[in-house]
């Protein structure tokens, strides 16, 4: 489960873009996810604080997602989120709408059987996200997203033992396109820019998942970190800005549970807590939903 921190809000994205699971040829896995993310404390630059003018900021999303096995070694994925935001205090109006569609191609260029222990695989993923509507990113923390086109290259190393021990490590670099605001100038990072266009710094992220994965039952602990490669800090008592340097570290878990007697249906839940950050909310995010697999998900046993 990857969480995109859109400004100070968190939005669910397809789980499978960051994990080591591949669907076999002809298999479709689709589902609907609900994400609930909230924070009442955030980092203004590196200063952690609360703000009575927003209270608790809640971001919710419903995402439709699908993952299809074009070949055993080649999957395509997509997700479409509808997002809505709310502040518990103050006068700011919540925002809502379709956010960014994500599309990805996932492939397994390397597969190595390590004797009787299990399988080690290298997985590459190319993903893009594109704003679906002309929502504005200029009312953070209540904007539904950052409205930047992105292109991500992700590499993953995945080990699955015969007994179900699962280890996944992933690292990605995301290029982000410039964002256009509705206003003719803005001040950020110590400078007045006489333009409506904002340069978006690129983003590096990595994550690790360790746990158990066997017979469609998955239970893992997760760690994820994001580093934005540039951008300014939120100044004292300023509003957040779309190109801020948004960094975080988060820990959580993820459980996938096959519904008894209906093995093509799986219940899925993930939790993540941001425990350190910069220009982001200290969010707790829970994502839950049902996934249906038409054809059985390929057993990733060796």
């Amino acid at each position, binding site marked *: 489960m990857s969480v995109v921190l859109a400004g100070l809000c968190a939005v669910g994205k397809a789980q499978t873009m960051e994990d080591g699971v591949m669907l076999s040829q002809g298999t479709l896995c689709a589902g609907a996810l609900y994400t609930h993310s909230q924070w009442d404390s955030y980092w203004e630059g590196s200063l952690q604080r609360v703000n009575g003018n927003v209270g608790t900021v809640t971001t919710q999303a419903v995402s439709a997602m699908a993952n299809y096995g074009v070949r055993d070694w080649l999957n395509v994925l997509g997700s479409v989120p509808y997002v809505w935001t709310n502040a518990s205090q103050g006068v700011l109006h919540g925002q809502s709408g379709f956010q960014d569609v994500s599309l990805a191609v996932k492939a397994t260029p390397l597969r190595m059987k390590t004797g009787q222990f299990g399988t080690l695989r290298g997985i590459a993923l190319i993903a893009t996200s594109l704003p679906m509507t002309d929502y504005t990113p200029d009312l953070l923390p209540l904007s539904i997203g950052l409205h930047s086109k992105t292109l991500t290259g992700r590499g993953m190393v995945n080990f699955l033992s015969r007994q179900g021990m699962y280890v996944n490590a992933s690292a990605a670099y995301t290029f982000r396109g410039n964002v256009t605001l509705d206003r003719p*100038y803005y001040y950020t990072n110590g400078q007045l820019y006489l333009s409506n266009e904002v340069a978006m710094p690129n983003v590096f992220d990595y994550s690790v998942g360790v746990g158990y994965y066997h017979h469609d039952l998955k239970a893992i602990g997760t760690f994820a970190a994001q580093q934005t490669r540039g951008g300014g800090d939120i100044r004292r008592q300023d509003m957040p800005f779309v190109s801020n340097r948004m960094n975080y570290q988060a820990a959580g878990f993820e459980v996938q549970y096959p519904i008894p007697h209906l093995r093509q249906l799986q219940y899925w839940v993930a939790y993540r807590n941001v425990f350190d950050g910069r220009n982001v909310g200290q969010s707790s995010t829970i994502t839950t939903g049902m996934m249906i697999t038409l054809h059985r998900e390929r057993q990733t046993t060796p």
Partner: protein
Amino acid sequence: MIHVSKMTRRVAVSSVSLLVLMSTVSCDKSITATEVLPAQIFTSVDANAGAWKMIVLSGPTQIAVNAPAPVTDGGYKNELAQIKTAQASLTDAQKAAITYWSGGGVLRWNEILRELVAKQDLPPAPNPDGSYPVPNAANPFADPQYPFANPPYSARAYSYVSIAQFEALKSAWFYKYQYKRASPYKNDSGIQPLLPTSDLPSYPSEDAVEAAVNQVLLKLLFPTSADYIDAKAAEQQQAAMLSGRASASDIAAGVALGQAVAAVFSARAANDGMRAAGGTAAQWQALADGAKARGEIPWLSQDIPARPPMLPFFGQVKAWMMTPADVVKERPGPPPSTSSTQMQQETAEVKSTVDNLTRDQLATVYKWADGVSTATPPGHWDFIAVPYVVSSGQSEVRAARTFALLNMALHDAAVACWEAKYFYFNPRPSQLDPSIKTMTGLPNFPSYVSGHSVFSAAAADVLDYLFPSAAIYFDGQVQEAAMSRLYGGIHYRSDIMVGMAHGKRVGEYTVAFAKTDGAN
């Protein structure tokens, strides 16, 4: 044990090509920060500007400027030799500075001022006990930084700098044509003119006058940026010298004149009522009690924790073109009573508008938000004026006049608007109906009349007069700016309609002056 299949190779090849594609997508994203200004082309040097009417100074000779040495003087020849030597080995930074200042000193300083306002436009963060610290001019770097360049503070700052610069340049023009010393490049053919040229005499240097006025007043108003301001002032003077436009003695005379005029304005600023504009807790309470005594619901801060009202006595700060009696005379009549049906209807209109916004209306809200970390509405109107100053080829003194008139009207608009706001102390829509949520930051001061509406109408009134061919555009911007506050959920229609009429009346005071100042 590694199986590298044909398929795998295909994947690898396609991955590599996608990565190549990605690297091309990520090509140059940089944004040009500063205004792109063409090198100036002067349609006139405004040789008679020394006779234009003054606003604060008694006349162009209030500050004396001694006659320069003749161009045959040995000292002056040494100054010319210095320029030649320097021109022979210009650094890239010096060339870049000359290009930057070739767009015009008045325009550049206005841009710098807008940047300083945006930098300082941050309200204090609350203390843990829910009180708010007050920015302290004696300790400007502490948290909260001094100043909080909110709209009234900024309106005043724009006006002081712009008017002082205009007065100093009129005085400079007077002496330029009294002494008629030509630029170094005209006195020595070995000197290249690297900045835009004209027949304007060079003593005292207009660039140095601008640099000195801005340096003194900007450091007074924005003390945390002193280093940046000093660097810009030094750079402008150096560009004037390296470009062959002004010699060291032209510059020294300009600096002295600029500093002396700035001192007159610093003294005025110390006694214009700004220091008392914040008021005291007892005075804030008296404002609320006054509204209650009139049978009205008094304004309440909706910041959490509640924040003291923004500069409640700014309405008593000295205006430029209006006497205190004028300010009272132009004050609009009262808003609809908070208990009236009309107020109920207007509140309902705000709610239905903000809950049913079109994307275009939302864009208007953001375009005109001009909230924290912005140049504020007065700066937005300066920004609007820039292309008209450029395209009409205004001389430096005329460009200074444009910004002086514009910002004089904007300051008077701030005074008049704030006087009305705190006279009526009327609540915001979201106070009367807490279910109203706003699309932009809620300003922490009373609702009636709308600041955006008063500022914009006053500014456009001046710009309509100065650039009549663009009047339809300016008036359209006024409507947009004013209505953006209804769309944003922070003003009633009455605030806006009455505010625009109020602003226009305020602007007329400046236009009346402009019609008779001798510059037409």
